[in-house]
């Protein structure tokens, strides 16, 4: 209903961007990991975002549908959701380092497909998107305060 939907949408954006930052941090932390939990070199992870659909159980959605969408807003904003965290299937890097314990018989070590530059730009992108969501939330809050001001 009304401005609360805007705050909810921004909130979903905040958690989505935070998750992107978390995953980017994990990628950076594991940039040199040659042995993951499954014994294989670490593979870069990526967050897949998707526009969120209506949740039929939320109070606002039920109320709005019972009122025939008259509560100021046709129930269109549901924010964003994370549809999954997928592994990047691009080829792993191979470097020559015969002294490494994980080197094969030719002296090559398979390294993760993490590119530090890509991760850093992803980090900047998600951090800026996070800020944008905060600003949107702040605007909605200011607007709502103005409405409450009418009652004074």
């Amino acid at each position, binding site marked *: 209903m009304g401005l609360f939907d805007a705050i909810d949408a921004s909130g979903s954006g905040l958690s989505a961007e935070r998750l992107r930052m978390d995953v980017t941090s994990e990628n950076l932390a594991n940039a040199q990991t040659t042995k993951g939990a499954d014994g294989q070199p670490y593979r870069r992870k990526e967050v897949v975002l*998707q526009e969120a659909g209506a949740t039929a159980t939320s109070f606002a959605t039920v109320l709005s549908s019972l009122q025939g969408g008259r509560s100021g807003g046709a129930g269109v904003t549901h924010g964003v959701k994370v549809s999954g965290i997928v592994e990047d299937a691009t080829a792993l890097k191979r470097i020559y380092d015969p002294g490494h314990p994980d080197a094969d018989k030719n002296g090559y070590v398979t390294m993760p497909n993490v590119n530090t530059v890509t991760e850093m730009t992803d980090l900047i992108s998600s951090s800026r998107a996070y800020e944008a969501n905060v*600003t949107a939330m702040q605007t909605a809050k*200011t*607007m709502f305060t103005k409405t409450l001001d009418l009652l004074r």
Partner: protein
Amino acid sequence: MELFDTTQIGLERALSGASLRQQAIAQNIANVNTPGYRRQDVDFQSALHAAWDEGESSVERVAPSVAVDQSAVMRADGSSVDIDNEAASQAKNGLQYEAITSVMKVRTAILRTAIGGA
């Protein structure tokens, strides 16, 4: 003159339109990194403007709604969100909302004085 005239109802409609527009902008910003997302927007001004000339009953019927922007996409990931545009629209919409509430506040104050309840 009735207690709440066309202007008051129009202001109320505009307020509800601006609030819905903020929702749409928040949705766009939340989906700034969603591939293939089409941005949404609310155009309540033109409908309200058209209804104004037709009188009070038309103004009362104005219902702002969200429309998906079908204009050309310039981003490689198929999303039509331009964060600069959204930020500008948001600032504009926030000021507009503030202006409407200010006018509403003054009008209520006038009414209150007339009633003698000041």
